[in-house]
């Protein structure tokens, strides 16, 4: 650990706290254990992770089967019955257009999951490719990509979000890209850091000396080493992506009506907070629970995949 830091202070400096935990140890051969069993054991060890997992599963089910679960049509307008407090028919009451709030929240789950997952996939895909390129292309390209990444990270996020949001419009695609473009520099740094670390290993030097192609090294050595930290970071940033989408919706740059986006619903109900607090608090509670769940599951996966934890949960 100490030598590595001395060799490569930049990487250690830039790495988010706790990331050095992802370093994979290559030297020791592992004792034969059932990987999946061990994973589940570590993963389910912390109660808070289990709670988070339950939240995620509930919301996942709500999103997958929203048409079966939701008691009403989330788009059905009833102007005569708007802004009703909770009743037996409308469990959470109705919004300003008389739509069932509960049904809208249930349908919103699908939207939140779709935007969150696709945002993370797009940003990690762009980021990984750029990170690999930076790690393996020449000095010029490396500098260019990494300096631009630094500049991108120094921009106020509001500017990026407003810019991309306004350019790409208020559809699902626009929102996903707006958030993804805010997140992808993190992946560049992650993958670049992994490449740098792995590159220093003797066996890479050896295979380079033996005339292996760069592509082969990438696929044989670099990518397998990147997978674990990538999975962990992707799970951990799911929550951030969902929250960023909600934030955009909240400031009025989110999904166009009448789509039941949780951020938009929070914003719409905002004015009635004093006398109908559920209108705003219920969708934001759903949001917080989902993000909490994602974060905790991410934590659990990190713990379970963390080599330092291997064998510790006997």
């Amino acid at each position, binding site marked *: 650990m100490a030598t590595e830091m001395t060799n490569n202070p930049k990487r250690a400096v830039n790495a988010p706290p706790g990331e050095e935990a992802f370093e994979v140890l290559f030297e020791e051969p592992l004792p034969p254990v059932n990987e999946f069993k061990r994973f589940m054991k570590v993963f389910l060890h912390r109660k808070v992770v289990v709670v988070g997992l339950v939240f995620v599963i509930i919301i996942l089910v709500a999103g997958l089967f929203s048409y079966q679960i939701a008691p009403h049509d989330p788009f059905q307008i009833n102007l005569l019955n708007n802004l009703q407090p909770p009743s037996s028919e409308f469990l959470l009451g109705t919004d300003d257009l008389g739509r069932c709030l509960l049904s809208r929240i249930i349908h919103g789950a699908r939207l939140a999951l779709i935007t969150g997952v696709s945002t993370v996939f797009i940003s990690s895909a762009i980021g990984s490719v750029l990170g690999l390129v930076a790690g393996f292309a020449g000095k010029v390209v490396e500098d260019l990509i990494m300096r631009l990444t630094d500049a991108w990270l120094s921009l106020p996020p509001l500017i990026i979000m407003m810019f991309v949001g306004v350019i790409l419009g208020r559809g699902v695609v626009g929102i996903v890209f707006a958030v993804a473009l805010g997140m992808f520099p993190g992946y560049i740094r992650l993958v670049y850091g992994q490449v740098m670390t792995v590159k220093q290993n003797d066996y890479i030097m050896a295979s380079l000396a033996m005339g292996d192609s760069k592509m082969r090294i990438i696929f044989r050595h670099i990518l397998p080493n990147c997978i674990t930290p990538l999975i962990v970071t992707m799970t951990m940033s799911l929550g951030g992506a969902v929250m960023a989408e909600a934030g955009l919706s909240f400031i009025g740059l989110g999904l166009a*009506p*009448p789509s039941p986006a949780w951020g938009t619903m929070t914003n719409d109900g905002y*004015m009635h907070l004093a006398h109908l607090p559920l209108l705003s608090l219920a969708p934001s509670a759903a949001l917080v629970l989902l993000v909490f769940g994602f974060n905790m599951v991410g934590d659990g996966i990190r713990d379970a995949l963390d080599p330092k934890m291997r064998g510790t949960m006997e």
Partner: protein
Amino acid sequence: MKKVVGIFFAATMVMLLVVACAGDSVQVAPGAAEAPGAADPTAPPGRPEELPGAPEEAPIVYDGATRGGVFIYAPGSDGPSQFGLPWDPTLGFASVTEPFTEGLTAQWPDGSTRLVLSSGYVVGFDDELGLYYVDHTLHPNIVLHPHILHDAEPVDAELIVWLADRINYYRTWPDGMIDVVAIDDLTVRFYWDHMRNATPAITSGWVTSRLIYEAYGEEGLNANPVSAGPFRVVESVPGSHVIFERFENYWREGLPYLDGVQIVYLGDVLVQNIALQAEGEGRVDSVATNTAEQAGMFQDMGYHIMNLPNQTITIVMQNDLPADHPLMNPLVRQAISMAIDRDGITRALGFGVHIPTLQYIPSLMRGHVFDPNFGAPAFNPGRARELMAEAGFADGFSTQLFPQPGSVTDSQAVAMASNLADIGINVEIMVMEGTPFTEMRRETGWEGILVGNFISWFHAEDSASVNFEHREGLLPNWVSLVPSEEMLELITAIRIVGDNTAQAVALAEYVLDHNRLHLIPLWQQGRMHIVHPRIHGYTPTDHMLFFYRLWMED
């Protein structure tokens, strides 16, 4: 809620009748027009207290609360400014500028003239020059707020002439104004080549200091906002707050007064709502809003709502689409008008402050017709479906709906979309930012249904030219209401000086003819003030004169 709308509607009708009758009976200012040829139909009102108010206006009770204290006002957001103040005083932010700026005259919301620094005016005709003139006589002893160069710079005829020249230099004089001269210390003469209803009101703009300008230039004026109103500026932070303090010279002993005014820009609705309900520090006495939801909520809580519905939300479609386009078909347009449940939308989403309407002239303006059957076809979805079938669109069609940002809420757009879906028209709601929306509207070639407030109302004759005139090369405010000869004649007729109510009605009849339906009016709305019950001295319908009414009782 319906009852409230009904009462409000009745009240506005009565109000309008009173205003209309008042036109014949208002006194003429001192030294009335005697010059030959002076067509002087404009009856200049006297001091404000002589003007007829709303009939329901209760006599103002001066209890302790109206004396002293600081009035805190939240106008929502600030406007752009070239003058170092958070607004541009020459523009329409009248309710914000009232505590500070003053000119010779101002305008009532219906377009008629109100005297401020001027004590009265004479309209005449100069035979030698062949020009009309308006002589304004200033009140004596008016001084500006104390500033760095002078404690009490006097406001005299020379200053007014200088101000007028400055406006001519930086911007432009009103159409038809030829020259401004000082007749004596207190009398200024404005020469005009023609007279319009609004002529006496359009004068020299905001009174400010000539000394500062000559010493420090335009930037000096920005840094030292000076005028002659009841309050002077102590501190101004753009986008945050303005603090006004009482201008001692302005106030007469023994009458109600305020120690100061604070303007805070509360952008957040929740903060506004809570501040309105707070009592101690962090209180706000009045909030200006465009949101019916907010106003309706406070109306139910016993707050005063000052509402002047001077905008009409209308549906507009292009007139130069291909002839076989569904939106070009008069039957489809009628069907659209019949599809929209105006009562339902205003009841559920207008919260008792929006008024459903079938005509575009608001009920407070001249030219409004008090016949419930006048205007666009009323709500009748059954008949609408028949019309769609007659027009050959029994299976409906798809198009886009563009709600104007800031005027039509997303919920209202969704409600309209659902109404239209009932008769087979599937619309996609296109939410746009303000500037792209304006740019799109200005251009021809867009396709779909525009919903918003596009009519600028001040005087019948101005709005006619602004909204409906469409000459070659003229700024197409009103995209493609390509006017026929007949329409142009009506527009010309409306510009006569005097009572042009009949002409305004004729134009409305033309535009709303069921075979044209250039516009489909939906409801009336306007900027509202929510006023805490502790405040006295307001009137429920004036909003531009809010500050004036509140304390200028001398």
